């Protein structure tokens, strides 16, 4: 009969249990690590995003299980590509970059994940309160965030300090449009091929209509009245549109009907125009790419006003997670990292403080290095963002929100048609009033068809 040594047996079984659990533990860890996730990200092709793509190694260091593939597209290609994907539930993208215009519309259609409910409240480290309030509201719908703001911006005036000085002019911090028109007239110089001002003229609801709408707002006009009747031909709106078209035709850059912000950026940085009214996010790139004689002479001023103060626009590019993504948690890790204070510091140190995503967090503007590098325009940028109110963009009441656009799905169609007519007026094919008449007719058709008007 075998004598069973119980003590040894128990010790033995303990040892084997220990060995077994270690083995299971190791296997589990191995399995977890080989659960590598690849995120596909659709981005607009801008310098800030390109910096992000370059810095992704730091993200890998933090989250070794997640790999990222970036798909960068120009803005007008990004929109249809992403829309087609989410609208048909194709699930090609895990993270998409969308604009402030899209966020509420897509949230309403249920295409993107409610970030507040899923993640923001749980992720204290992300410091949601640090986000600049107006920008945070832009990427929210009914109080919940549906996108993390990558950067926020408003609009202001770029100008050439040296040309102003030479002409004996001074640009106030808050100019009026009448003053701008006077300046443009004096600074327009055919002999040196320099135009007084550069403004967007190319067709596109997000191109020429952005600055034009802010001009309409500050002149006291509006797109629609409370009953959704188009107001383009109402006296103040008409005046604003005529003002914009005439300014471009008399003292604007040549061939303006083909120029968007890209072309104006090129003109301004190469010294071919004395003033440029456009997005605050271009301040860094302008200083970066300016030709030698322009570089040290760039001045900034607030968006010009007429009757209404604070006429700069409000825009943000946000990162959203489509509902169809299979890697929601990993996607959140990426987008929270890209919009965190940690990332902003990293980008500042590695890529230069001028290319750090602006206008998203209050803490950015408190960093001494950032203040030093962007002293020329950081203050004005913050001021412009804070002054813009998408909920009350006009003097008279309106049924819509949005400063430089109208947050209804039909606005892309309306905007594209109207900006085409506007380009026709700018290029001299028709008068501004003819453009207004044609646009209003079309707008009425679209609005009736969509059910806003009976």
């Amino acid at each position, binding site marked *: 009969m075998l004598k069973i040594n119980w003590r040894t047996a128990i010790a033995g079984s303990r040892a084997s249990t220990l060995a077994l659990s270690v083995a299971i533990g190791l296997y589990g860890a191995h399995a977890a690590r080989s659960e590598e996730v690849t995120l596909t990200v659709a981005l607009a092709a801008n310098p800030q995003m390109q910096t992000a793509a370059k810095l992704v190694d730091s993200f890998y260091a933090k989250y070794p299980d997640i790999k990222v593939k970036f798909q960068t597209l120009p803005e007008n290609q990004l929109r249809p590509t992403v*829309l087609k994907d989410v609208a048909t539930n194709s699930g090609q993208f895990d993270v998409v970059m969308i604009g402030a215009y899209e966020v509420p519309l897509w949230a309403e259609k249920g295409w993107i994940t409610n970030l507040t409910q899923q993640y923001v409240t749980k992720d204290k480290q992300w410091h949601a309160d640090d986000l600049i309030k107006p920008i945070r509201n832009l990427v929210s719908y009914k109080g919940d965030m549906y996108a993390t703001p990558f950067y926020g911006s408003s609009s202001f005036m770029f100008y050439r300090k040296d040309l102003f000085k030479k002409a004996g002019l001074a640009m106030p911090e808050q100019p009026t449009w009448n003053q701008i028109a006077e300046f443009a007239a004096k600074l327009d110089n055919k002999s040196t091929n320099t135009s007084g001002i550069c403004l967007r003229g190319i*067709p596109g609801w997000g191109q020429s209509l952005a600055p034009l709408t802010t001009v309409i707002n500050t002149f006291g006009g509006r797109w629609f009245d409370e009953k959704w009747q188009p107001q383009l031909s109402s006296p103040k709106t008409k005046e604003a549109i005529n003002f914009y078209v005439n300014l471009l035709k008399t003292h604007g850059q040549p061939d303006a009907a083909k120029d968007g912000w890209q072309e104006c950026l090129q003109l301004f940085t190469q010294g071919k125009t004395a003033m440029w009214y456009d997005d605050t996010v271009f301040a860094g790139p302008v200083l970066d790419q300016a030709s030698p004689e322009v570089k040290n002479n760039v001045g900034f001023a607030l968006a010009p006003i007429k009757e209404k103060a604070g006429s700069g626009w409000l825009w943000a590019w946000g990162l959203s997670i489509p509902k169809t993504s299979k890697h929601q948690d990993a996607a959140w890790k990426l987008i929270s990292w890209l919009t965190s204070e940690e990332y902003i510091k990293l980008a500042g140190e590695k890529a230069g403080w001028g290319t750090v995503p602006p206008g998203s967090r209050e803490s950015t503007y408190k960093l001494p290095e950032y203040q030093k590098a962007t002293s020329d325009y950081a203050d004005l940028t913050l001021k412009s963002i804070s002054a813009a109110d998408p909920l009350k963009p006009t003097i008279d009441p309106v049924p819509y929100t949005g400063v430089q656009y109208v947050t209804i799905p039909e606005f892309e169609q309306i905007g594209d048609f109207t900006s085409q007519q506007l380009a026709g007026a700018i290029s001299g094919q028709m008068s501004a009033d003819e453009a207004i008449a044609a646009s209003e007719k079309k707008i009425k058709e679209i609005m009736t068809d969509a059910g806003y008007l009976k």
Partner: protein
Amino acid sequence: MPLSLPLRSEKRTSRVRNAFVKGWWDRLPLLPALVVVLCVTQLPFVITLYYSLQRWNLVSTSAPRFVWFRNFLNAFSDTVFLKAVLNTAIMTGSIVIASVIVGGLLAAGLNREFPGRTIARTLAITPFFIMPVAAALFWKTGIYDPTFGILGWMTDEVGMGRVNWISQYPKLTIILLATWQWSAFALLIQLSGMQSFPTEVAEAASVDGAGRFYTFRRLMLPHLRPFIELTALLTAMYVLENFAAIAILTNGGPAYSTTNLSYYVYLEAFSAFDLGRASAFGMIALAFAIALTVPMLRVVSGIFKQGGRA
């Protein structure tokens, strides 16, 4: 063993059956190609037809619903659509005619013997190989731009001042760019046509005392006819569907003056996101194209020539 004669009806049946089998056997080599084209194009075509009968806007808050032919009827009261049809006719026609003429002239020049002829020919056909998107991008800033482009500098030097190409002559800008690329294509085809011109005929003509131009007009041109027709047909087909230049240079403007049917369909699908209307417009464009090509193909001689053994 005596063979039993088959009944007459059996023989006819088997002959019919053989003919049937033979018919399919004859068609067999065609089938793979045909099947591929059918599958890849017809399934989307049917879906497009289905969409064209609906009111479906990707971003609107209302759900898609059937409206049958409303999209088609709306097309004809849509001023932009009608403008697009007109623009298509003007721009495509101009590009095809200009390309054939320019290509033909260059081919005539390059058909002759002169030192460096191969190099010249090589350089002249290069525009056709350049990617349309890249060409358009570069022409926009490097050539047409009144401030930065080389044309701006050139017209300034000769005293014409700086021309606002895209604002003042939008259609011309598109036509110029497209002709530049397609005349290289026309050059290629017509040059080969000229080189296939039997030399004995040319020799005989010159022996008879015919001048060079006479030979060209009376003998070469008729020989070239099928090549010219082929060029025109292919160029028209590709110019119709390509809108890279329009998208990049003018965005279809100003005021839709350079929007052709293809680009308008693109705008409806990708900017207004109205798939119902875009599909309907696509169908109408197809109908127009078919209506135009059928009579043309019946007239055109060289293309439908039947050869070899009938």
